[in-house]
């Protein structure tokens, strides 16, 4: 018996991928939870952020801050392109447009015509070079020795920056949502005509919210690719639905919900993987090791169903903030 999987599951708590998912979900919470924008293309925002960062840093050799700005600018432009034609329409149209736009991004970057810049279906490697170059940590491996929780300086660096960004995003959302700006945003979620009748420029607020959440999605894309290479197929619609799962887990209109939701989502995946493998090794489960991957997601899916039925507001949510019950 190998208890290592428990350490691996614990490791998920500060994994940079988990941070990236949390960050993207915070963006989604601004869109869906607070403003009521049904954005089904958050994966597209992540892709735009990731590509803008990787292309500028790897292909064009921009300095790190330039690449970060490019990711932010890219997500902003993407939000404007999506929002200006659709935000005047009913909410469902935005969801259709965003889901299509995210797929357009993913399929476009894969076409051979753009592969000189985007790397085609191969993606882009080594986007973290400039990022790791400014790593202030000394070289070496740190962590709890004797467990898998030992990382080198670059792994620690991305963990610190990734979770630092998550903390900043949480602070931002907290400050915004207790303010009059947040009040207008939440009013729009409830009834935008009422807010309009009170003299607020609803369209402008929706664009602001779309940009803000989109930029967080773009930054999540950057955090996502720093520890790995950029792969276009990571940004399918499945990614968006994982983010929705995380959001519903934590609570759709909460500040910390996305963080906790993301951790629970990944820890659950990791734990069930370990437990299933144990069961298979012991001959208890009539499964093969290749089947454990899909089974994990089935378990997450069932958990999500139970959650939506029995605690639809999520772990942190207030029942009143719920708009699908």
């Amino acid at each position, binding site marked *: 018996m190998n208890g290592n999987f428990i350490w691996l599951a614990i490791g998920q708590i500060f994994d940079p991928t988990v941070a990236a998912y949390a960050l993207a979900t915070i963006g989604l919470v601004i869109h869906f939870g607070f403003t009521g924008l049904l954005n089904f293309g958050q994966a597209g925002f992540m892709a735009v952020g990731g590509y803008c960062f990787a292309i500028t840093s790897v292909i064009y050799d921009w300095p790190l801050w330039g690449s970060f700005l490019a990711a932010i600018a890219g997500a902003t432009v993407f939000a404007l392109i999506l929002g200006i034609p659709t935000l005047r329409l009913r909410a469902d149209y935005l969801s259709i447009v965003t889901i299509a736009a995210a797929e357009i991004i993913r399929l476009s970057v894969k076409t051979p015509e753009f592969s000189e810049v985007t790397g085609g279906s191969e993606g882009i490697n080594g986007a973290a070079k400039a990022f790791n170059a400014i790593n202030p940590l000394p070289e070496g491996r740190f962590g709890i020795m004797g467990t898998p929780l030992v990382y080198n300086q670059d792994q620690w660096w991305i963990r610190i920056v990734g979770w630092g960004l998550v903390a900043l995003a949480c602070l931002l959302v907290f400050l915004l949502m207790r303010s*009059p700006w947040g009040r207008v945003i939440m009013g729009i979620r409830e009834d935008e005509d009422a*807010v309009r009748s009170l003299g607020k420029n609803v369209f402008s607020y929706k664009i602001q919210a779309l940009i803000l959440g989109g930029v967080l999605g773009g930054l999540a894309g950057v955090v996502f690719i720093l520890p790995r290479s950029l792969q276009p197929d990571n940004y399918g619609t499945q990614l968006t639905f994982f983010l929705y799962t995380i959001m519903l887990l934590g609570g759709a209109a909460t500040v910390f919900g996305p963080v906790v939701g993301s951790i629970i989502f990944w820890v659950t995946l990791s734990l069930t993987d370990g437990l299933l493998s144990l069961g298979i090794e012991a001959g208890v489960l009539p499964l093969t090791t290749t089947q454990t991957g899909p089974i994990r997601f089935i378990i997450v899916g069932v958990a999500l169903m139970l959650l939506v039925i029995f605690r639809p507001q999520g772990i942190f949510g207030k029942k009143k903030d719920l708009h699908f019950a």
Partner: protein
Amino acid sequence: MPEKTLVSDITDDVIVPGVKKKDPIVVAHAVSRRFGGLTAVDVAHLEIPRGSITALIGPNGAGKTTFFNLLTGFDKPNTGNWTFKGKSLAGVPAFKVSRMGMVRTFQLTKALSGMTVLENMRLGATKQGGENIFVSLFKPLWKAKEDEITERAMQLLAKFKLDTKKDDYASSLSGGQKKLLEMARALMSSPELVMLDEPMAGVNPALTQSLLGHIVNLKDEGMTVLFVEHDMHMVNTIADWVVVMAEGKVVAEGPPSTVMSDPAVIDAYLGAHHATDLGTIEGQLEVAEDMESDLVRSEVEHDAEAAGIAVPSHEPSPSTDAASTPVDGEEKK
């Protein structure tokens, strides 16, 4: 009975639909709105007098709410122009119309149910710098204004007897309370023209009286009120001026007493006993006298005698009629 604005203060001209007002706050000219083949609104000329209460009445489908939507920028007309305080409003979006001082409520109440009553009220305030995304991040920049807004919100809530509910979610309010909240919220911006779309719909009779009082107060505070309403009692009681719409057109306007006796209006909309107050036994008696049904009449007369009101004598008709005659829906509200 509230003090009414004199007709001579509203207009000097001969009263015909589209008559010029001495001091109009809203002037609409040749406003039309078509939905496919249907012309929902086709108003040749209409002026709303400043500082008074104007009622907009008409049968269902007359285009009253559509006209409201057009005036407030929630819908765009096919033709026409209209001004508010002398400024053209054609093509001005709804939120700017509201900022100019023309605030509306909705026929189907739009209380923001997921927010507390107080937050609903605060949202109605204008000039809160904290509604800018960058300013909003720094609480000291908007805290003072927020306190000011909260104070005003509490004053208004107290006036509308909702102050004890300030921390309740708007969804927990009753239909009538939501109407009150919506009206109070509209007043947060200190508008010059308040447009109420069926303020009485779904409000219980006990609340009606206080709602009427609130509307009259708005006028006393110098605001102009334009409201759509089907309740003739309310129109008679508080309106200084009545505009009647039918099939999208303004068919009549004038002070309530004149309009209510206009045969065209009676035919189109009001029915013979429109001016009778069914809230009183005298009123019920008057209607019952004209009815075919003996059952209703004897019931009302019985009530009247019990209340010590003189019952006019009449020839009793065969009581068999009572069972066969359908009871007119007018005898009870």
